[in-house]
């Protein structure tokens, strides 16, 4: 008998047994035991025995105190990383959009770059709108960058009269679901010397008498063509895709704050791959989740599997101070308390010089410092010391 999701699973029964055996299991493990008990139709005695055995196995699997988890995590992420460099595929993840993948992307994540090379968003819609293609296309055109030349039927520069004449194509406007008056308004705002006669517009440069008149005119022509008439800041191209039964938008560039404010956009599933933006809009905990998700999907996409616990540790370290910090010189390694630890990493001279100027004291509590001075390191069995409580000796004080 297979337990289907949604079937009743008696978690409470297992919880009781676990409590009786004085084991502390995470929620998921308890659920899995309950599921197994259901599937195998275990009696109370059998369940008792199972929990007892699992408790033993769980204790054995637990990370011991004093274990160098950071070093293990570094090696566990680093080893598959060496395989990534050999496969330098850099192909598109979504249809026509180019997304940085592989090692460059992983480095970007742990370095906590402010400007990532290919920011992208996945925009989903609320239930009522998701299947409505027309609505999604309208929103896509509001989000994606559209410039004036995208909606022009004719564009000509007249060097005799020193003016530029353009004709707006009504069909193109309709096709892009834009508003005619809105566009005219934007043009009027951007250019001072413009004459509007329905769909035919003529522009004149503001400075016409100077000897650089022709250059001015050409500059103006570029300006007219590149005038942005629609779109959200920082977002470029958009791609509309059908995913299952609903429509979704993928973008080049990212602006989570602005997109989440739009009507009809799903405020639960819409995400970006820019970790700093997630931090700014959704907070530090969301940034932590985002780091884990991005790092893991980057590894998985390359066909490599790393235990999430290692990535979680990295994400925890990066977000523990309330802001996203990078791993390395400017982040975690650069903020270590010990002078010797910092000096052994990078920029040795700088750190030693500064420490001597300030008169810093190294308390030799870390690993690296103790290796440098040649002492046993506080790790594993070395992490325990002997403390004498003088009260206890023979009852004397």
């Amino acid at each position, binding site marked *: 008998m297979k337990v289907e999701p949604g079937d009743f699973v008696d978690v409470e029964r297992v919880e009781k047994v676990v409590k009786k055996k004085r084991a502390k299991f995470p929620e998921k493990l308890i659920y899995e035991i309950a599921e197994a008990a259901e599937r195998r139709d275990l009696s109370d005695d059998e369940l008792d025995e199972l929990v007892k055995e699992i408790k033993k196995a769980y204790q054995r699997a637990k990370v011991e105190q004093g274990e160098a988890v950071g070093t293990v995590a570094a090696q566990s992420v680093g080893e598959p990383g060496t395989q990534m460099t050999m496969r330098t595929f850099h192909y598109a993840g979504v249809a026509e959009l180019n997304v940085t993948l592989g090692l460059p992307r992983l480095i970007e994540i742990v370095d906590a770059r402010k400007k990532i090379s290919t920011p992208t968003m996945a925009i989903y819609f609320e239930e009522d709108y998701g299947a409505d293609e027309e609505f999604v296309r309208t929103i896509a055109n509001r989000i994606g960058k559209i410039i004036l030349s995208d909606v022009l039927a004719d564009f000509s520069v007249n060097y005799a009269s020193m003016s530029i004449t353009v004709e707006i194509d009504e069909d193109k406007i309709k096709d892009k679901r834009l508003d005619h008056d809105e566009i005219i308004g934007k043009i009027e705002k951007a250019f001072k010397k413009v004459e509007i006669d329905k769909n035919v517009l003529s522009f004149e440069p503001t400075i016409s008498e100077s000897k650089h008149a022709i250059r001015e005119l050409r500059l103006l022509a570029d300006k007219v063509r590149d005038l942005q008439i629609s779109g959200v800041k920082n977002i470029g191209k958009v791609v509309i895709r059908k995913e299952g039964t609903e429509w979704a938008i993928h973008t080049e560039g990212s602006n989570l704050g602005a997109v989440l404010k739009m009507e009809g956009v799903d*405020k639960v599933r819409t995400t970006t791959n820019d970790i700093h933006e997630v931090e700014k809009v*959704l*907070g*530090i905990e969301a940034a932590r*989740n985002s780091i884990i998700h991005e790092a893991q999907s980057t590894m998985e996409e390359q066909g490599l599997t790393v235990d999430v616990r290692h990535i979680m540790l990295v994400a925890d370290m990066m977000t523990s101070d*309330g802001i996203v910090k990078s791993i390395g010189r400017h982040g975690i390694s650069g903020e270590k308390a010990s002078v010797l630890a910092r000096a052994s990493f990078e920029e040795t001279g700088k750190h030693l010089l500064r420490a001597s100027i300030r008169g810093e004291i190294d308390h030799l509590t870390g690993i690296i410092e103790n290796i440098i001075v040649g002492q046993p390191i506080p790790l594993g069995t070395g992490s325990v010391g002997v403390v004498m409580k003088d009260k206890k000796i023979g009852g004397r004080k």
Partner: protein
Amino acid sequence: MKKDILKHKLVPDHTILSKTEAKKVLKELNIHQEQLPKIKVDDPVAKAIGAKTGDILKITRKSQTAGRFVTYRLVIN
């Protein structure tokens, strides 16, 4: 809008602990509050739930390994 972010799939549950709860948690973990991970007072979520500097937030994460995981963060400036 401000409350909307709390529903986002990337944002776990944040709740403010009362003084007595906070004390109990610190005692259980056997640490000082400065040893907790931090969260900025101007963090969007901290602002949305109205946390003040010095508060301790209880964060209930959805975890791939443990199912549900409870952690704490100290609100700092």
